[in-house]
């Protein structure tokens, strides 16, 4: 009986969503827009013309009601290509991010928990963080041939250390907690402690890292396909669409404008979502930030 008095019934779901939205307006708006663009790109292609179908009669058309973004030098519908490119660019970004964050989290966990190995690992990690990703992509483009694989390898290698560093510093903080000590004293092995007690506590940070890194991944993905070091035509990506439009910059600037603008918008939204998510996940950081804001405001 008393339990009924103590635990109030959970609020109905819509009300909870509404209150979440009221507390985190940026997160909801930016995250919603990201999901909207992604869904658009996923849902649209079946309703659009074939992105690879050439139509020599309608070459290099300007945007119109029939061809929302115009057509390219082969008469292919650029809006259809934009949508299919979005699938590739967003997919590639996700793939890189998931690989880098998984790898980085694993390295961070081990480097944080095993002190001696950690120092050595972090020295190596620091050194490899230093490398320009485009240069590394150049190397891999030579070794495995330019394309998806070289891009994935190069960008994953560059992005892994960032996550490793952040996760490690979090793990270092966690290992001194009493429940971790208790687990150790009660005879739990190091790997099980890592999996049961430490990993779940680093997951929110890993999720934030995912969002923030994917912003960088999308920019680099764009640059690499632009330079011909990433996924190359006939498969469209937002980056190589910009490269394609480059030749027709004078007469058809929209060929460059639309795909590039999409990248910029997507990255901008990812950055904002990432910061909002970080504030949401790490209440301490949020408190500190609020405090600083208040102090700043009081000065004004």
């Amino acid at each position: 009986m008393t339990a009924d008095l103590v635990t109030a019934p959970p609020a109905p779901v819509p009300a909870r969503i509404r209150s979440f939205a009221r507390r985190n307006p940026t997160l909801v708006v930016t995250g919603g827009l990201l999901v909207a663009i992604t869904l658009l790109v996923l849902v649209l292609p079946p309703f659009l013309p074939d992105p690879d179908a050439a139509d020599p009669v309608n070459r290099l058309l300007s945007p119109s009601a029939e061809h929302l973004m115009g057509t390219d030098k082969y008469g292919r519908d650029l809006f259809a290509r934009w949508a299919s490119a979005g699938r590739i660019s967003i997919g590639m970004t996700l793939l890189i991010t998931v690989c880098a964050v998984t790898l980085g989290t694993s390295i961070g966990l081990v480097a944080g928990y095993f002190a001696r190995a950690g120092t050595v690992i972090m020295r190596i990690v620091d050194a490899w963080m230093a490398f320009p990703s485009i240069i590394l992509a150049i190397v891999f483009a030579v070794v495995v041939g330019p394309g998806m694989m070289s891009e994935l390898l190069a960008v994953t290698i560059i992005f892994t250390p960032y996550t490793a560093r952040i996760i490690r510093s979090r793990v270092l903080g966690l290992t001194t907690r009493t429940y971790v000590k208790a687990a150790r004293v009660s005879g739990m092995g190091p790997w099980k402690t890592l999996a049961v007690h430490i990993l779940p506590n680093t997951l929110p940070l890993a999720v934030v890292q995912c969002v923030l890194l994917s912003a960088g991944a999308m920019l680099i993905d764009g640059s690499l396909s632009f330079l011909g070091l990433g996924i190359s035509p006939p498969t469209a990506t937002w980056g190589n669409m910009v490269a394609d439009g480059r030749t027709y910059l004078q007469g058809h600037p929209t060929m460059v404008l639309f795909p590039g603008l999409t990248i910029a918008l997507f990255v901008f939204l990812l950055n904002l979502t990432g910061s909002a998510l970080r504030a949401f996940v790490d209440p301490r950081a949020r408190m500190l930030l609020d405090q600083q804001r208040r102090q700043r405001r009081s000065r004004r």
Partner: protein
Amino acid sequence: MLWVILRRLRDLVVVLFVVGTVLFFLLRSIPGDPATVLLGTKASPEQLERLRQDLGLTGPLYEQYLHWLGNVLTGDFGTSIKYNLPVLQMIFDNITPTLTLAVVSTVISFLLTVLIVTWVTVAPHNRVARLVSRAAQFGLALPEFWLALLAVYLFALTFGWFPPSGYTPLFADPATAITQLTLPVAVLVIGQTAFLTITMEESVLGELTQLYLRTARAKGVGERRIMLRHVLPNSMLPVLTSVGLNFASLIGGVVVIESIFVIPGLGTTLLGAVYARDFPLIQGGVMFIAFLFVLVNLLVDLAYALIDPKVRVS
């Protein structure tokens, strides 16, 4: 201070050794015979054998490696296959445009960042100032290759204020050089300033919680003076570190910009080397960029010591 330099020099050697070694084995791991790849299937056996000799591709792998290492230690980075010139000479021939772009844009971005953040910190009420610092979030999201093409479209093709491409050495013909450099540098500056502005604003926020501010206020120092004399100089140090760490992404940007504005720099050379599968040139160029990175961070450390007495003492 001497220790810092010595330690950095040791790091430099280690980084170059590791990068060189990894590259050596990566490039050797490519399936197939590089000589056949380079000369095509129509080449005669003698030609292939001579090229293998030139590339140091004869003998077992460890022997090749020692041979290469010995050459590098004596300053011989091999000969470019495509251009048939010593790699080191090619790098030095092409480094000036790259360095010009990197240095000029970094200096301008740094000054611009300090100006913007000072403005925002001293006049927090000013709407324009706040708008500029908000814009930094958006500037961070702009892909360089796209921004560069938009700039070419607007300022070169439509208005005709600047040439759409080309490069003249700065000291050969300053007037032409400056008109040609304006657009590439401006594009690099936008991205870098956005990044540095955000870094410095965060660092100002952190500095504002420091207790010495209370002391300063208690003894009657004016708000403006506190900002200019205490908060801003202290917030500049992390920005300096960011300049060093941002070098990697700056080089990435420079490669893209060189390719768009047809500037004969290191990036263009390296990209050309990839398409031509010019292994010695790639190996030398990449090692040189690693060298630059360590050098830049050494300079940042030195600047740190110059600016911050605390670093000098410890």
